[in-house]
């Protein structure tokens, strides 16, 4: 029940929106689709959702080719677009019941399912209010519930976290991890990379319509990246780093190391390296107050790729 795309290409007139994407998203895992604006994420998701026909390449969603068996692919796929509208005059419950009927979910199954979903996305108290009173984040949550109404095995989410408050983002993460734990294949596009760090298992990086890298988040954690090291005396910290021959840079490059508390940024190979550095610094009597990654794991990969592209 995985998602597979090979050599997918799709252009709109002269614009090559997707220009050679390879992607595999495995069941039980959350795969992040990362790329700058206009890199083809949404178009790729439209192809995977079975709405757009690719110009070239092959696609399998849950083992079904949407080109050969559109209906079969749609039956196993849940899709939440980046921008979508709601039927203003319908209540949240009616929207979900309508979509359950559209997915041919029997009525006796659909009713408890809809109640359960409304509770999951915390919209139970809004269930009988027309959708136009919902806030943007609430509409977003309703859209997520709609994508889940037929219990799909493959879930395609385009920027699901946009417009969500911090609490809802945590809920979204918990929900997606839960679904993945039950074997759902989940593909999430986003550019809020710190969120994906905690949510995703794998990452696919798109740029200018192409797959430029694939990586597991575990690998990303072991990638060389900047860490922020903070001590009670910035001068003592810097002196110790110079003695060890470690390269560092200050947060404020033109100021002399301060007598008081301050931090520097060091490049470290891995979390093991970070642990060793901390142990050594504490052993050397440096009053370390914090050591943390300066950027998210996926963010550093993303920025590296951006630099390579320039």
């Amino acid at each position: 029940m995985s998602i597979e795309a090979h050599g997918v290409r799709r252009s709109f007139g002269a614009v090559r929106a997707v220009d050679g994407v390879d992607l595999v998203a495995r069941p039980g895992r959350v795969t992040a689709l990362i790329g700058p604006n206009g890199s083809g994420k949404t178009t790729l998701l439209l192809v995977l959702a079975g709405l757009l026909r690719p110009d070239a390449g092959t696609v399998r969603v849950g083992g079904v080719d949407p080109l050969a068996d559109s209906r079969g692919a749609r039956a196993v796929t849940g899709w939440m677009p980046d921008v979508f509208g709601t039927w203003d005059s319908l209540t949240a419950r009616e929207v979900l019941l309508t979509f359950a009927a559209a997915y041919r979910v029997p009525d006796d199954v659909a009713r408890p399912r809809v109640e359960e979903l409304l509770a999951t996305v915390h919209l139970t108290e809004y269930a009988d209010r027309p959708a136009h009173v919902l806030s943007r984040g609430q509409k977003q949550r309703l859209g997520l519930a709609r994508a889940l109404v037929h219990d799909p095995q493959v879930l395609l989410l385009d920027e699901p976290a946009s417009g969500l408050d911090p609490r809802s983002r945590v809920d979204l993460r918990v929900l997606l991890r839960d679904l993945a734990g039950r074997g759902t294949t989940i593909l999430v596009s986003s550019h809020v990379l710190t969120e994906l760090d905690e949510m995703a298992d794998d990452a696919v990086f798109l740029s200018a319509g192409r797959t430029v890298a694939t990586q597991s988040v575990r690998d990303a954690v072991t990638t060389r990246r900047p860490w922020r090291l903070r001590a009670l005396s910035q001068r003592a910290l810097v002196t110790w780093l110079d003695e060890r021959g470690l390269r560092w840079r200050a947060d404020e490059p033109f100021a002399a190391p301060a007598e008081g508390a301050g931090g520097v940024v060091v490049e470290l190979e891995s979390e093991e390296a970070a642990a060793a550095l901390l142990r050594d610094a504490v052993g050397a009597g440096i009053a370390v107050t914090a050591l943390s990654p300066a950027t998210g794991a996926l963010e550093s990969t993303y920025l590296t790729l951006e630099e390579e592209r320039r």
Partner: protein
Amino acid sequence: MSTEAQPRIAPDEGAVPPPVRHAGVWSLTWAGVRTVAALELRQRVRSTRWIVSLVVFGVVVGIVTTLTYVVARQLTGDLGTGAALDETAGRTMFGFIVFFVLFLGLLVSPTLSATSINGDRAHGTLATLQVTLLSPAEIVLGKLLASWVASLAFLAVSVPFIVWAFATGGTALVGLVTTVLLLAVVLAVVCAIGLGFSALTARTAGSAVLTYVTLAGLTVVSLIVFGLSVPLVSGVERVEVLTEDWAPGRDITFDEQGRPSEEIPCVLREEDRYVSHTERTWWLLAANPFVVVADALPPATGGAAIADPMTGIRYGVRTMRLGVQEPLDECWSAWQQWDERERDRRERADALGAVWPFGLAANLLLGAAGVVVAVRRLTIPQAKLPRGTRVA
């Protein structure tokens, strides 16, 4: 860096995807159609403006019916009394109200359906519906059903007034039933045409304009083209003419009204006359919804003396279909037999058969074309997108 760069694919590589098999595009279930129709109607019925426009519609039709009734009564009173006159007044009122309702229906129905698909696309609600297990045909027919039901609500509001007009006399009950049914069918056709255009164009204003242009083409432009095309099918020909024999030397006296005191004998001659072969162009009139409704109304039982607009249109179009009828009748002085000759003319026109089945068939074909276009445009995965549209 533990990221592995993917080999870049040259633009001309990559397998060409298999041809799309559009299985199940036309699969239809009542549950699917009902789901879409219920969604559309709920969305519409709950907006109060809709109720307001229904009320306004009813008030307008009511006022016009009342005025027509008053005018018809006055005319009848002025001209005297008689069964034929009463029937003419009743049928005129009935025809006028039916035409007025049809006119308003043609105005109102496109606003319901012509924004249905591109409006949903603009709102971002269409694609989420397309990815469900609803077939494109179910979505289209559901939308058609919803806009038709909404149009029928307008028709239902005007039915009491149509019945009132019917009750003033002159129209057979079967005429009332067929007229209302035909109005309903014409509204369905208008909805289907609007739906087709709303699938074709990106903007709701564009599809509304195209739908109105099409309706204008059916009702007004076709009439203008017919009128302008008459000279093209006309010319001077040698035809048989039944004409009065003004033999030289005959002594004729006239009465005070200028009518000859004795009947002038008519003879058959071959003469040159300017004639119009409208049997080649009558079909331009047939597809007109107004002609369809008028032609399908059974003629008055009272005979040729009843001359209401509906009967006039019916025999007008049927006579056009007959074209040049030889011999041309120019026995003007035989006015005493006018009724008989008019009946004879109508019988000949009726013998050729009704015009409305052709018109109805043409309209139904247009409507079917609208549905087919909409279904094709909603079929996914889409290869081409209409200009200026996004999928979602």
